[in-house]
């Protein structure tokens, strides 16, 4: 798999808290058997109700770095949410914190979710608003995000960081390598052998 050490692109600010996955992709768009075409429906209902939503703002067209708030991606486990954002063009998310299932789904898709302080997220937002074409880089080795002259520290749990930077974020491949160990482990569990004496 591709080594993901640095992601670079223009930014889009969405510094709001507790954005749930129903808002990222409303449930009616989950009536599908592939993830194709989800990208254009990212934040569909929020955008309908707020014509100045960043996802409709031409200044942020083509952005790859989403700046989010606290507890981003909470609620439903739907992988359709990160799939939609990824297909819209988002390659990394810098937020104050992330819901766990969403974080795991993003990692599996090779979309790093990194944390920064509220103050730094506000500075990044200001930098993007001042110059929407400013290039933002998220570096998983130096654990820094840069936008022009602004440099902010970021954090990401070691497991996810290592998986991304060493190209091991395809967990299925790694899990398959342990097939013999899985068969052996299964035999040690009482319920797998019917609780026989």
């Amino acid at each position, binding site marked *: 798999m591709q080594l993901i050490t640095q992601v670079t692109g223009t930014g889009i600010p969405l510094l709001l808290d*507790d954005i*749930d996955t*129903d*808002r990222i992709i*409303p*449930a*009616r768009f*989950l*009536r*599908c*058997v592939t*993830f194709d075409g989800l990208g254009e429906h990212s934040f569909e*209902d*929020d955008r*309908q109700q707020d014509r100045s939503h960043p996802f409709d703002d031409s200044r942020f067209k083509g952005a790859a770095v989403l700046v989010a708030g*606290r*507890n981003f991606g*909470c*609620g*439903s*486990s*739907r*992988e*359709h949410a*990160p799939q939609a954002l990824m297909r819209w063009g988002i390659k990394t998310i810098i937020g104050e*914190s*992330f819901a*766990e*299932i969403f974080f*795991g*789904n993003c990692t*599996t*898709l090779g979309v790093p979710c990194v944390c920064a302080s*509220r103050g730094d997220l506000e500075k990044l937002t200001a930098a993007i608003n001042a110059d929407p074409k400013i290039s933002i880089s998220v570096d998983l080795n130096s654990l820094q995000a840069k936008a022009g002259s602004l440099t902010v520290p970021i954090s990401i*749990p070691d497991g*996810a960081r*290592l*998986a991304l930077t*060493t190209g*091991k974020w395809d*967990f*299925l491949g*790694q*899990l*398959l390598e*342990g*097939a013999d*160990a*899985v068969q052996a*482990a*299964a035999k*040690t*569990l*009482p*319920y*797998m052998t*019917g*609780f*026989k*004496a």
Partner: protein
Amino acid sequence: MTDRRNLFNKVWDLHSVRSIASGQTQLFIGLHLIHEVTSPQAFSILRDRNLTVMFPERTLATVDHIVPTDNQLRPFADGLAEEMMSAIEKNCRDFGVRLFDLKDIRQGVVHIVGPEQGLTQPGMTIACGDSHTSTHGAFGSIAFGIGTSQVADVLATQTLALSRPKVRRIEVTGKLRPGVFAKDVILHIIRKLGVQGGVGYAYEYAGEVFDRMTIEERMTVCNMSIEGGARCGYVNPDQTTVDYIKGRPFAPQGADFDRAAAWWLSLASPADAEFDDRVTFNGSEIEPTVTWGINPAQSVGVSERLPKLSTLTADDQKGTGDAFAYMGLNEDQPIQGVKIDVAFIGSCTNGRISDLREAAAIAKGRKVAAGVKALVVPGSQLVRQQAMDEGLDKIFEAAGFEWREAGCSMCLAMNPDKLKGREVCASSSNRNFKGRQGSPTGRTLLMSPAMVAAAAINGCVSDVRSML
């Protein structure tokens, strides 16, 4: 040296297969539940990589999210829903997975079916592409929601790559007062600890209140762990757990059952177990609780008023102000008396037989208020049958509730049961997010099934304690 590991860590250790290169644990999954919404792309991954299902007998499929609860004739009127039904039927056939479809009396909401059939057992690891998989923790299992790529991981390898979370013990002492239900307990916990308070944690629910709860009540609490940010929550197995499982179709039988029960009970956290964090609440102080906002922590006791903005931090003022604007509510107004348009009783949170009994006790001999659309949606076909055997359907229909077929219904917006426009719904479900119930501007007030019945009858949020 005594073993001071809590249940979570014991079960985790038992299921650890090995460490993988990036440091996560490869964790064996004892029971995998799938449904029509989050599984089709997972089966596509298997086909693309030419993989099979490693332990097909450890996966059970049912259909719930997209199922209409009025007219279930195939093909469905919604072509997209019909395509998803056909996909799960074909995938289960092709890969040898057992499916409880609409023609099977065992069909229902996935988190109601597993326990009902005795598939959910203490000491198991359980995964499902659905965040409310935490429900199964009521039995002392480690159960959590996963994404679709991880559904493929479990199908192909019966394992997941995971990092071990911390464990927080939440003790609720004392005794609940009349009219206060399991739903109120979990809404209260989320209100106090916040919607992200549980991120990075598994929750162990303990104390007198949980000791006294039935398994169905424990399921309601564990179900909403995710609404507090905790991917899983559990209650230690006890005699209540053992008694519930005994005799169910997939439970061990005879001497095997006795050995199973002994093992289950041995997994409970010891009295001196170690935890990463502890929190205590007094159960006697919990009121019937109602949400007023757009996340499940935005709630008050039914006798309280909505918060005053001036009492909040600047960040919270913004979130609260946005929630008031969306909900059309004002600071410092009482929650009682807020008018409703729709009343929904059902879901994986509160669609079991005890929930229907509690709601029916309030509905009995009363009438739904004029202009309120009220529906009761049993969580499974077997719950529906049981309720009809007890005459609950007649009580609901006499009161003016619609009596529906089993499914997820109005908890989310994937089937024909949806709010219209800015309708306000008193709902026994689990999420009050913007647009959650199918109208992009629809509004949800979460509460217990008895409180929903009370709201349906009065046409507004009401204190069920005056109607017991």
